[in-house]
């Protein structure tokens, strides 16, 4: 399936925002495992997923052309 990945902050240095063709992934938990395997630095970072502009609180099914954002916490002031 093809997903639009949008990444913010330091996450963007590991995974740039892009259209990503992803094999054998059907939900957000599988997507996290896939991304952390493909981009190993991501597994050491704190981030939250948003699926189609809603923060993901549980494992959700993915559809073709969904948008997934990866948001790190910011603390600066």
């Amino acid at each position, binding site marked *: 399936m093809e997903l639009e990945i*949008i990444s*913010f*902050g*330091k996450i963007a240095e590991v995974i740039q925002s892009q259209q990503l063709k992803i094999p054998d992934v059907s939900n957000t938990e599988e997507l996290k495992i896939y991304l952390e395997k493909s981009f190993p630095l991501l597994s050491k970072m*704190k981030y*939250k997923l*948003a699926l189609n*502009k*809603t*923060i993901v*609180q549980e494992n959700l099914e993915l559809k073709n052309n969904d948008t997934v*954002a990866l*948001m*790190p*916490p*910011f*603390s*600066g*002031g």
Partner: protein
Amino acid sequence: MKTERYDRQIILQGFGEKAQSLLSAARVLVIGAGGLGCPILQYLVAAGTGHIGIVDDDTIALSNLQRQILFSTADVGKLKTIVAVERLQEMNPEIEIKPFNLRIQKNNILELLKMYDIIVDGTDNFDSRYLINDACTLLKKPLIFAAVSGYEGQLAIFNVKDHQGKATNYRDIFPVPPQAGEIPNCAENGVLGVLPGIIGTMAAAEAIKMITGSGKPLINILLHYNLLNQEQYQMHITPATDYNLPTTEDDFLKMNNHHDLESPSTYIEVDAIQMRALQQLPSTLLIDVRERHEVPALDPATYVKVPMSEFDTFLNTDIQEENILLLCQHGIRSVAAAEALQEKYGHSKKIYSLKGGIVKWRDHFLTPSNER
């Protein structure tokens, strides 16, 4: 009420004298008088917010002036709260502005929050942010969350019910605070001065919208802003179920996941003079945890180089010295390294971190006597 000062907003459609009197009666606490706090305060004061509290325990540094636009060069070394109140009161003497020159902690935050109706978080560290979030959630105080990193910012409003009756807080996005050093801050990551200017101004706008009931405030919405491409991205926040927050003040005071009260972090932060004294002791190891490319380079005979990227491997070796002092550019990574060593050695060694890092004590590191 004298209205000439506020004439340009009173004549706005949908604002009027009613909104102005709501502003005049409003009580807003701004925590942190830094890059975000300055513009937040300036616009709240100019707009005629009736009662404003300012919390900060810091003094003004030269490196603050690039973004903390309430302060001038002559203010360096003075208390932020005192200078801020002076400037702001000159700008608008018709409102009440109170300085709270203190660091928020578990044992003082609840009393502070109770004096105000809307809280704006413009602090610069996760310990404070989680403490403010948890205290506001306990007291059901509307919290405007503003934060920046690099060229990007985040903004949200917590603890206010949306039209479905749901309220969220920061732990619905990030339930567990990051470890010290896990996420870079402004001192390590850098920040362009206008970024907190933009995000702080947007936070002030959200406060004014909340107070006057104007527009659609960012309730249960996390706004992400990128200065480099001027893009905004909004994400809807829903309540999570994977954390518990205290429901009584007693339980809040007993919470132990706030670093400032969390038990034995027994490493000690020292200044350059204390570091010099430590160097005279017979069994002291000085470790520079900066990466190999960082400057100024220090004499490797005096300062052993163990970059943070190699620190995990280093933890597997045993240190013979009794005193270990860690240093880095700003004294932030060295705290993370000190915590890791503390965890390994407990009370068997004395661990120190150079507060403020090499940047703060630059003269000390550049004097030739230090090379011996």
